[in-house]
């Protein structure tokens, strides 16, 4: 019953730390941010960002997902490790969900 499709958090954290230390700050745009899909959950489920921020979703499950905000944006189907980015140019609350697994929901609050 052991599951192997979860990423090893330790490794990810280690790599992120290494990147933070080794990469010059200019290569990472401070106002861009990430949402991960792990175990059919958007993490973080709610995100507060400033207008102009680009959010990038990464699917880390073994099952495809989508990111859909009715009338606002819609990703292609993301297979494992595929990414989708959207730049928020208007303030507001953006509810979104996975159109394949609609119990998966998230929110981006843009100020």
């Amino acid at each position, binding site marked *: 019953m052991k599951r192997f499709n979860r990423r090893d958090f330790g490794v990810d954290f280690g790599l992120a730390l290494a990147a933070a230390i080794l990469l010059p700050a200019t290569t990472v745009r401070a106002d861009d941010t990430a949402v991960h899909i792990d175990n059919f959950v958007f993490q973080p489920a709610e995100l507060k960002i400033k207008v102009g921020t680009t959010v990038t979703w990464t699917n880390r499950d073994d099952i*495809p997902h989508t990111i859909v905000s009715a009338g606002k944006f819609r990703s292609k189907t993301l*297979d494992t490790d595929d990414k989708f980015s959207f730049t928020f140019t208007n303030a507001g609350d953006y509810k979104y969900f996975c159109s394949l697994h609609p*119990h998966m929901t998230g929110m981006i609050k843009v100020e």
Partner: protein
Amino acid sequence: MSGHDHGNDGVSRRKVLECMTWAGTGVLWTITGGVPRSLGIIDSAEAATAAAPGMTFLQISDSHVGFDKPANPNALGTLEEAVAKINAMPAKPSFMIHTGDITHLSKAAEFDNAERIISQTKLDVHYVPGEHDFIDEEVKLYRERYGRGTKGHGWYSFDAGGVHFIGLVNVVDLKAGGLGNLGAEQLEWLEDDLRGKSKSTPIVLFAHIPLWTVYPQWGWGTEDGGRALEYVKGFGSVTVLNGHIHQVMQKVEGNVTFHTARSTAFPQPAPGTAASPGPMKVEDAKLRSMLGVASVNFKQNEQRLAIIDTPLQG
């Protein structure tokens, strides 16, 4: 199945126990008067022979052709094994239904590979789509292949062996926060399709996502499934066959029997036993005991149906 009927049909407790001693590959269920009776583990060959009278059809589900992740790096291979198992059955079934997720990513090559393998059964196959069959860019590959003669997103009905079969689509226009969805247009069609049918006609409803609420936390249910069930309420024998959850689950409510089939690709965890409903990695030696197909037998005038779930390896 006459030799294995319960109680008043004359089978003794001893006979049942005898059945259970056969190192078998399937669990036989019979339903009489709305009460499910597990008759124990039986050998699939024995079951198929016993089931010969009446009509037998097969259910195959969730083949996920194209899936290659650790839970099963070769989903096409296990589909081939399932087809070999079907071809080895001593009594040829009348036809087969496939309850969706034929492919993993709706790629043309995946549909082609699935067709190449499944057609080796030389059986008529009645398909309904899973959400994985509708994710190509133009959402057309499934319907080009299997949509002919269907309504809306691919729903239809047909009659076989005195039974009325209804294939429903509950993987389209899903709403945020919700479950599977049939939609008003399909429900209207369903009501119309059933109008005028004799209440003694056995009904089989099949769709990808369970029409009953299995576990809403994982999306395992259909938002408006209850409305479809309202329409079949008056019928004496109703069987609801679904896939999606990659495991056998059964319940009986009045005259309605609900049953879900195994996948031929990978198992999923029992509700709430894992962090998510995603593919479950099990030991290699155990995988084939968690994959399989189902065969369903009807006998005319008996308001009874038997479902035998046969794993690829038991």
